């Protein structure tokens, strides 16, 4: 009789074999994955739970959709959504246009000068928004700021750029769109450089003029870049925070609150963690939609 009570030898063998085969793979991913689960996956799951809870310092209780309903009936929330949308739409439209124009203008220049301009346009993008926002407060300063100085030069009355609730949001938009985004210039410029010369030569043979070439060759071939930039700028636009926090703090009289500013206020001034999580999920839904569009339309690699 040969009945063995010991574990099936082949099972032990398989576990040992598995371990020997894969231990290094797990060693390589372990640090990142442990951090990922603790600081990304788990907190994301918790955000979903919190959004359906009323959270106090001591207790937390399930309230269903109440946080979302409260937001739906909150005037501040809707005006916040409106501000954020206005900001995002203006910024995306202006940035796409200005980076396309700049890239088209530097295209015919020599490589050296091209990279000089690309550097010049990228430089303002590496400085922190906190710093940039502080400079803009100074430029917008009512009495001695540069903008009001320019206005008095041409005989116009001074403007309360950040103090007037009807103007403050537009001043913040202006401070953003006056700067050409370096990323757009670099990517458009790379995409234009990759368009084969033959396309233009062929159109020359057929007698196309400059505008026709732009409309029928350049723009269609830039479509993937335009889509990519539109998505990343939209996402960035919806996430605007530092600029508002530093320049106006959401004021005057809540005329410049944006979603992230509102999340920050709700969580860390009102300590309403449930409602702040609900706001964050709404932001998540908006951004996920745009990311999804990007994945759907850009699933094929764009070659430069």
């Amino acid at each position: 009789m040969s009945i063995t009570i010991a574990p099936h030898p082949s099972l032990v063998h398989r576990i040992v074999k598995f371990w020997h085969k894969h231990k290094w793979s797990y060693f390589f991913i372990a640090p990142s994955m442990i951090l990922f689960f603790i600081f990304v996956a788990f907190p994301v799951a918790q955000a979903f739970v919190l959004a359906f809870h009323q959270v106090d310092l001591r207790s937390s209780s399930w309230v269903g959709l109440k946080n979302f309903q409260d937001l739906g009936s909150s005037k501040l929330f809707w005006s916040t959504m409106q501000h954020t949308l206005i900001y995002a739409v203006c910024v995306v439209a202006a940035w796409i246009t200005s980076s396309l124009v700049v890239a088209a203008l530097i295209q015919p220049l020599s490589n050296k000068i091209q990279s000089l301009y690309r550097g010049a346009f990228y430089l303002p993008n590496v400085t922190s928004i906190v710093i940039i926002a502080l400079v803009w407060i100074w430029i917008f300063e009512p009495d001695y700021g540069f903008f009001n100085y320019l206005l008095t030069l041409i005989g116009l009355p001074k403007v309360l750029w950040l103090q007037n609730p009807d103007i403050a949001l537009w001043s913040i938009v202006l401070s953003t769109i006056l700067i050409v985004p370096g990323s757009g210039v670099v990517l458009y410029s790379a995409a234009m450089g990759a368009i084969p010369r033959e396309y233009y030569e062929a159109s020359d043979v057929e007698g196309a003029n400059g505008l026709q070439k732009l409309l029928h060759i350049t723009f269609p071939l830039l479509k993937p870049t335009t889509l990519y930039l539109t998505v990343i700028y939209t996402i960035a636009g919806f996430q605007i925070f530092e600029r508002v926090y530093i320049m106006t703090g959401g004021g005057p009289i809540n005329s410049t609150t944006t979603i992230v500013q509102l999340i920050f206020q709700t969580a860390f001034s009102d300590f309403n963690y449930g409602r702040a999580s609900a706001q964050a999920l709404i932001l998540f839904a908006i951004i996920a939609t745009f990311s999804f569009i990007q994945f759907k339309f850009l699933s094929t690699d764009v070659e430069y």
Partner: protein
Amino acid sequence: MSYFLRILAYILLTIVAVVSLFPLYWLFNTALTPASSTVKLPPDLIPVNATLDNFDAILRASGVAKIPIPGSDEPWRVPRLYLWFVNTAFITLFSTAIHVLFDSMAGYAFAKRKFPGSNVLFVMILAALMIPAQVTLVPLYLLITQWKLVNTFAGVILPGLADVIGIFLLKQYIQTLPTELEEAARIDGASEWLIFTKIILPLTTPALAVTAIFSFQRYWNSFLWPLIVLQSPDLFTLQVGLSFIHTSEFGTNYGLLMAGAALAAIPMIIFFFAFQKYFMQGLRIGAIKG
């Protein structure tokens, strides 16, 4: 293109570039202008009476940190601004080093190694790419509070170490490397760690540089999370410190504020000029892989 159009392009470009660079110029111009000249009209368009007074003023305005010296009753007094520099540099360099190491390890495993669970884990990372950081803001704050890490560097650094973008970027890059070298080394009996450090990493240098550079920029400029976690002024980073001075009684002294902003901006600007090539490369890698 005709000569005339070329000149027109230059003029237009230069105007746009001047406008784009104006805020940075105005920052340095005001920082170097005597405080009395920042409250007069017309303003000095160039720093005619250049002075470093504003830099002295911001050092004083940032306050004095008293660092106890072991074996001495008298603490070491140092302007807080210096501490903010050291704090920012420490947080930035530490986090960047960890990102480069952990991200390349995970990127390599996902790109080159077949193991059970790799697909599921990678899909989770892809999904996480779509999640804005603000979603985890409150849960992370609760976690940091629970772990008693509020007002510590560990609280600032730890949550940021999970870096899905870096893993994704390095995976995509390492995938394009040939497998033959690895296999040859394995047949020769090289250990897996040796293969990773001596064969994979050297070939990955461009992508590692891009990861390091973006991570450096992200941490040097990061604001919201340190603002939430840090409470004592001695522990502030430069960005948090600047916003702190902006809301203090010195908040309307623009010469002083601009001097502080200039000091915080200079390292990043030098960094950009030193590694400009990689900034541009990084953008393209990011765009190609979406």
